[in-house]
Every structure is written in structure tokens, then in C-alpha cells.
């Protein structure tokens, strides 16, 4: 049995016990006086407090360990891997997404780009892109160019030979109104910068 299975089992038991205790509490299985005296014991007795603190710390550490193991497992699954004579090279899909974001910076027409890379078993790589455009462009032409650039860059930089499918979803094209709004925002922030008071400036005027 792997470590995370043990931790998973432990937390399952803990949650079942907690659930049973809550149900028992609601059904008045325990007497209130017994509960109060028990709580009082744990609240005042130093040894009980120390043991409770240790249990709490152990549970927090176990939870953190569990989270780390699960996230590492998920990350391992989300990689492209190939082997060299000296060892293995794995590339996380986040790195592929980083690359796509960097590519998008070369296109001034793009306001925002959100990539999502998925690996299809034996069928290659799917790149799903959500796009917000800054200006009115010929969308079929522009997206075809973007698809081609992304595809060729991924193949060139990662040395991937599998089929790459780039799907683009144009979510929004910023209108003239939105663009001027944004420009105003920029210029107003620039004005604010201009209005910064220089310390002791008045002394010079005097």
C-alpha cells in the first residue's frame, strides 16, 4: 500500500468518527454533563492539552503531506516526457502554457490569452486557447496565423513530433469604447504620477 493510501485511509476513518460523533451529539446519546466534564478535563489538564496539541500538529502535517503527494501525482501526470542517453526529460504542461503566453506577446492584436494544454493518449496534444482581441482583425486569417505559429513553435522548442491540435475560442473583441476607457485609465494613472508632491518643493519657491 502506498503512503497516500494510508493517509487517505486515516482521514476516511477520522471523518467517519467525526460524523458518528456529530450524529450521536444530535441524538442526545451523550449526556450534557458528561460532555462538559470531558471538555473541562481537556481544557484544564496540562497533559491532556499537550496530547491534544500533538494530535492537532500531527493531523495538520499529515494533511499537508497528503496535499503535496496528491499535487505531485497530478503534476507527474501532466507532463510530456522523452528519454535521452543520460536520463529522462519531462516538461510540465504549465511550461507549454508559459510558452504559448510568451508567443502571444509578439501579437499586438491580443489583449488576453488563456491557454489550456491537454495530452490525449496516443493522439497527441490539444491546445485550447481563449482569446480576447484588442482590435478588429480578420479573425480567420489572424487565428490561422496564430495556430500555425503556436504549433510550429511548440514543435520547434519542445521537439515534439506528436500531432498538435490548436483550438482557438475568440471570447471577445474590445470595442472602441472599451479601448478609449482603457486609454483614459492609463492616462489618469499617468496624471496621478505627475501630481506626486515633491518633498520640500515649496522651499525652492520661497
Amino acid at each position, binding site marked *: 500500500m502506498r503512503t497516500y493510501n494510508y493517509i487517505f485511509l486515516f482521514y476516511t476513518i477520522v471523518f467517519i468518527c467525526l460524523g458518528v460523533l456529530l450524529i450521536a451529539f444530535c441524538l442526545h446519546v451523550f449526556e450534557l454533563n458528561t460532555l462538559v466534564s470531558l471538555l473541562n478535563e481537556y481544557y484544564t489538564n496540562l497533559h491532556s492539552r499537550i496530547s491534544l496539541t500533538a494530535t492537532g500538529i500531527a493531523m495538520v502535517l499529515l494533511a499537508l503531506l497528503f496535499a503535496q503527494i496528491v499535487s505531485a501525482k497530478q503534476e507527474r501526470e501532466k507532463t510530456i516526457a522523452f528519454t535521452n542517453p543520460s*536520463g529522462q*526529460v519531462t516538461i510540465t504542461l504549465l511550461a507549454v502554457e508559459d510558452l504559448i503566453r510568451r508567443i502571444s506577446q509578439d501579437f499586438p492584436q491580443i489583449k488576453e490569452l488563456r491557454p489550456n494544454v491537454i495530452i490525449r493518449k496516443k493522439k497527441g496534444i490539444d491546445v485550447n486557447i481563449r482569446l480576447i482581441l484588442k482590435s478588429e482583425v480578420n479573425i480567420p486569417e489572424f487565428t490561422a496565423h496564430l495556430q500555425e505559429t503556436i504549433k510550429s513553435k511548440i514543435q520547434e522548442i519542445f521537439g515534439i513530433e506528436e500531432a498538435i491540435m490548436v483550438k482557438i475560442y475568440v471570447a471577445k473583441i474590445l470595442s472602441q469604447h472599451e479601448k478609449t476607457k482603457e486609454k483614459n485609465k492609463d492616462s489618469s494613472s499617468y496624471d496621478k504620477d505627475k501630481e506626486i508632491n515633491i518633498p520640500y518643493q515649496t522651499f525652492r519657491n520661497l
Partner: protein
Amino acid sequence: MNQQSKTEFGTIKIHKDVIASLADNTIKEIPGALRIAKNLTTRILELITKQKLSPSIKIEFDKNNEAIIEIPLVVSYGYNIPEVAANVQENVKSIIENSTNILVKEINVNVKQIERG
């Protein structure tokens, strides 16, 4: 934690951190390899202790005392990743074997991020 060897005068122990530092310094000199990627735990610990911790390179030894090294890497934008990874593997292997006499079995490079270098 240490890799140990014996000479006629006594023992020589090389800490895993030394191997990690050697790898880290070598990587800095390879074009396209920007730096070692830090995991969340290292980042939090660096924030708390306000000290630069040793690079997050995992080093393990097999039954034959050969090292298996795992390197999380940040690569500069524009470089060919398989080439950069192969360079990292070759250079790190040779520097570790030459400097410490430890045999390197595998160097696994894990490209975590791409940044403009």
C-alpha cells in the same frame, strides 16, 4: 545524506547539498537554462527564514552507489528545450563525476517553466 568514500587516512563524506550546488552552478553557465525551479515548500521556507536555501535538486543513490539526480528547471524563452535539457544532463554529469568521483546513473530534467531570460 552523505556519500562516503574511504582513503588510507580516513573517510571522505560528500553531502548531497554539495552535489546540488555543483549542479546549480553548472546549470547557470548553460545557455538557455535560466535557473533551478523552486517548489512551494522551499519558497515558503525562504520567506520565513529569509535565507537562500539549497537548490531543490533531488539526489538519490541506488544499490551500486550511483547517483540519480532530478533537476527541476526553468528554461529561457526561445531555446530548443530538448537541446538545453541534453546540455544540462551532459554538463552536470561530467562536472559531478569529475569533481566528486561519484558515478551518475541518471539525470532527469523536469522543465517546469519558461521565462524570458
